[in-house]
């Protein structure tokens, strides 16, 4: 796909960091090695809920290990995630706890010269736990007399008592839901669940900390926000921010797993400060699995609808099992409300969300942040409505979706904006033709052991969390752009790339704006001391928000460039243009139509340096005042083996409305990856716990947890992707995000495909063979009894 409006935007180019990745030269946190570095290990709780009665580290210390216990670390209560404004941040943890709330929670940490020695020191630790009754089910946890995980937490600076393990509750109401349901010709109602999927990023979390001579620290960590990591470390360890340098390090996959400052970062820093030596801490896969997981969902959903398919009301009630600590449940519930109300127009609506503590690994954001969960329920219901009213499922969607010109509040009630670009209809209709929708047949026409079905799911994600007014969530990015004396360009930002090509997109935008060949635009290594604040690379905000800050800095730089050029070639700066001249490998500033009035960007920069006019440089902090929806549509074909309950994804069409697509190959790659994880959420993935011990059933093994391999995905021929042809007026060069949107619609599409194959509505994800078989058996029994 080449877009004639642009030189590099929309063109397939090799990613800049790709060469390092294919040659093994890309350095991730776990690859950092420093002189005299100690290796750390953490003693973790075998109990799901226990008080720590006694700790003896003397034997470990005798072996030469440096040890930290809850006594040695700051007692400050904090929240790992720092994206919400302080007043809306729930704080319920300390660097090391005096009471453990899930199996695998770190209690004591050791650091020693070698990993082997650290392991021996770990074995030599003596910790006495006083086991407490534990609770694993959120509904049980809310009962009177259930084991209490937290007595009180801090909300901002206020002490907030916790009752019945309810971490927080949120409600959103518009209109009168009871009235809306009364006005309906049909009321449908169902209950849906999704599992506690594990992020499964290939790089387990790692951190290295070096104490500096000035009392400061340098940190290399798997993190999506170097600035939030720095600020949190500053407040925990009482070190001025000017002495904390958090380096931006490539991340081996994230999917939200490092949206917060992971607990191991503070532990590593505490060890390094005590040892006054560099310390490295790399989590084992098992430890990583006990660190975080996706927010599961339990959703009760009711819709009222007119005979013609128009929705009259919607009511979504959810209970979210957040595990032992509250990382971001409050904004999560706000977003879940937002995802719900912004999918389909609801004249009357109600949302109620309750987040509940249980003795399990803490849940955090994972691709979609409550969105795949809500969309699974909503998209399943759209098909139910279509079936009941005998309308084509695509038509029900077309009739009700929130689109162009309508108000939308995807990021929750406080973040409202109007939709200015929308490719929903285009994607539904084109995808319908591509997948052969009309030929899919109804479930009643399908017989035999193997049955195929096609399902549709649509959804969206917001591009960031920006809004005209400051809300509960912070959102802005800072970027610096500078033209070097040879005409090349440096871009400096704290923005991250998680693999999707965010930084490449930024470089393309700067190249496009400055008319400089792409290979002359570099993304500089960055850290917290050399960059301005960037909230976090999350919420599908990289291109739309982070990219926009780079573009704005480039626009400022261009003004300076033209000003300097005008002095040299004596042309009014407003009349100048800059275009890439690939034969010279240079940008050229020119006056169109006047061949004599040309000068290369390098000549301008060099002249400015020699004459002492200064560097061509600009720094910009930029907040987007919108967070437009990037819409997605998935069509999925599955094959159900009615004898075993196995479901195989056979074919898929995935589309996104990302506005202008900056990196087509990488954007399509996002769709393919998102689809794979979305199918995983639908059919495969969950972290379950042994009820007697509170341990993970999968034992920390990836193969027992199960993720899809190359053999499980549809063939090259059977998987297609495409982009809607739209332009987002508020986006940099018309762009919106892709990221999280890519997996939001998938689980719903899969469930609908299963229904189309076997005529059974499965509402519990993952839809495992056992669940399929028991549903098939139930269905057969009901048939026999004449329903």
């Amino acid at each position, binding site marked *: 796909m080449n877009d004639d409006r642009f030189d590099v935007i929309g063109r397939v180019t090799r990613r800049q960091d790709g060469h390092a990745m294919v040659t093994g030269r890309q350095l991730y946190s776990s690859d950092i090695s420093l002189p005299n570095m100690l290796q750390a290990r953490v003693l973790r709780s075998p109990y799901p809920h226990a008080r720590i009665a006694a700790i003896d580290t003397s034997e470990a210390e005798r072996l030469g290990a440096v040890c930290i216990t809850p006594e040695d670390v700051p007692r400050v209560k904090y929240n790992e995630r720092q994206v919400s404004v302080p007043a809306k941040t729930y704080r319920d943890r300390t660097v090391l706890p005096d009471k453990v709330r899930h199996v695998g929670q770190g209690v004591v940490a050791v650091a020693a010269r070698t990993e082997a020695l650290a392991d021996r020191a770990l074995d030599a630790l003596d910790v006495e736990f006083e086991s407490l009754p534990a609770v694993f089910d959120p509904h049980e946890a809310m009962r009177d007399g259930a084991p209490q995980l937290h007595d009180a937490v801090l909300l901002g600076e206020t002490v907030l008592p916790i009752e019945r393990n309810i971490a927080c509750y949120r409600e959103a109401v518009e209109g009168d839901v009871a009235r809306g349901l009364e006005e309906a010709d049909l009321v449908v109602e169902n209950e849906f669940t999704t599992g506690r999927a594990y992020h499964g990023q290939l790089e387990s979390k790692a951190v290295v900390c070096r104490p500096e001579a000035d009392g400061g620290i340098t940190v290399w960590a798997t993190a999506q926000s170097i600035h939030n990591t720095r600020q949190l470390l500053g407040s925990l360890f009482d070190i001025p921010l000017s002495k904390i340098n958090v380096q931006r390090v490539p991340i081996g*996959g994230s999917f939200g797993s490092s949206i917060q400052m992971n607990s191991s970062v503070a532990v590593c820093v505490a060890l390094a400060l005590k040892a006054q030596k560099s310390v490295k801490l790399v989590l084992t896969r098992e430890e990583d699995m006990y660190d975080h997981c996706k927010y599961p969902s339990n959703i009760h959903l009711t819709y009222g609808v007119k005979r013609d398919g128009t929705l009259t009301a919607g009511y979504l009630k959810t209970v979210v099992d957040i595990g032992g600590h509250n990382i971001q449940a409050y904004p999560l519930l706000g977003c879940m409300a937002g995802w719900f109300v912004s999918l389909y127009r609801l004249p009357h609506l109600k949302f109620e969300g309750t987040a509940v503590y249980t003795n399990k690994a803490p849940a955090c954001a994972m691709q979609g942040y409550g969105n795949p969960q809500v969309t699974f329920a909503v998209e399943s219901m759209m098909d139910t409505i279509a079936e009941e009213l005998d309308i084509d499922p695509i038509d029900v969607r077309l009739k009700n979706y929130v689109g162009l010109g309508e108000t939308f509040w995807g990021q929750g009630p406080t973040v409202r904006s109007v939709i200015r670009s929308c490719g929903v209809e285009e994607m539904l209709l084109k995808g319908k033709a591509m997948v052969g929708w009309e030929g899919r047949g109804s479930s009643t026409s399908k017989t035999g052991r193997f049955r195929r079905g096609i399902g549709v799911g649509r959804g969206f994600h917001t591009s960031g969390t920006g809004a005209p007014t400051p809300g509960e969530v912070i959102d802005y990015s800072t970027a610096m752009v500078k033209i070097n004396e040879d005409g090349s360009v440096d871009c400096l930002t704290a923005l991250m790339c998680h693999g999707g090509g965010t930084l490449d997109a930024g470089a393309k935008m700067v190249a496009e704006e400055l008319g400089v060949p792409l290979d002359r635009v570099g993304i500089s290594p960055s850290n917290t001391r050399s960059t301005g604040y960037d909230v976090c690379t999350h919420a599908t905000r990289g291109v739309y928000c982070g990219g926009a800050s780079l573009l704005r800095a480039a626009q400022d730089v261009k003004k300076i460039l033209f000003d300097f050029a005008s002095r040299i070639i004596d042309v009014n700066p407003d009349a100048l243009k800059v275009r890439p001249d690939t034969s010279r490998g240079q940008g050229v500033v020119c006056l169109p139509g006047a061949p004599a009035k040309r000068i290369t960007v390098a000549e301008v920069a060099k002249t400015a340096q020699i004459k002492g006019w200064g560097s061509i440089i600009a720094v910009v902090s930029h907040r987007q005042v919108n967070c437009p929806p990037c819409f997605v549509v998935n069509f999925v074909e599955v094959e159900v083996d009615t004898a075993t309950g196995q479901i195989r994804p056979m074919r898929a069409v995935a589309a996104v409305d990302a506005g202008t697509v900056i990196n087509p*190959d990488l954007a399509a790659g996002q769709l393919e990856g998102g689809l794979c994880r979305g199918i995983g959420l639908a059919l495969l993935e969950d972290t379950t716990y042994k009820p007697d011990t509170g341990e993970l059933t999968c034992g920390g093994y990836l193969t027992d947890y199960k993720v*899809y391999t190359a053999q499980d995905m549809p063939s090259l021929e059977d998987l297609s992707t495409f982009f809607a042809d739209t332009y987002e007026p508020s986006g940099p060069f018309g762009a919106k995000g892709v990221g999280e949107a890519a997996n939001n619609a998938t689980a719903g599409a899969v469930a609908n495909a299963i229904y189309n194959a076997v005529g059974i509505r499965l509402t519990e994800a993952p839809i495992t063979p056992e669940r399929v078989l028991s549903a098939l058996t139930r269905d057969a029994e009901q048939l026999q009894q004449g329903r």
Partner: protein
Amino acid sequence: MMTKRRVTLTVNGEHVEPLVEANALLVNVLREELQLTGTKYCCGTGQCGGCTVLVNGEPILSCLTLAVAVDGADILTIEGVAKPDGSLDPIQEAFLDHGAVQCGFCTPGMILMAKDLLAHDPSPSEERIREHLRGNLCRCTGYHRIVKAIGSCGQ
């Protein structure tokens, strides 16, 4: 204290003789002793393929292999795949051209598996590629472009 042993290896064409403990894993010797961090440690239990290297031309999981067990072997890690002059192997080129790299963490293992496959089967079918990669996890790409890239290298 464990006694150390000297092992003789040819790693990426270079003769090395690291001193290793009897229980040292190859992945750690490569990453720590030889500072070849391109080989990735992802699970440590043989479940993801991220630590794959070629030993005498055959793929092995270096997280499950003792360094002493490969004494005398010829080892290829991701750092040795490009030519000594720095020019890329066709598989590496294909990964870049097909957008087969996202976070890059699975990439070294994938490229070495691809090298192994193409050495045995110069034009593998798609099915064969997928089967060959079944032990290598990628969380980012959904495998689509990895399979495509490897397929494009077939003759």
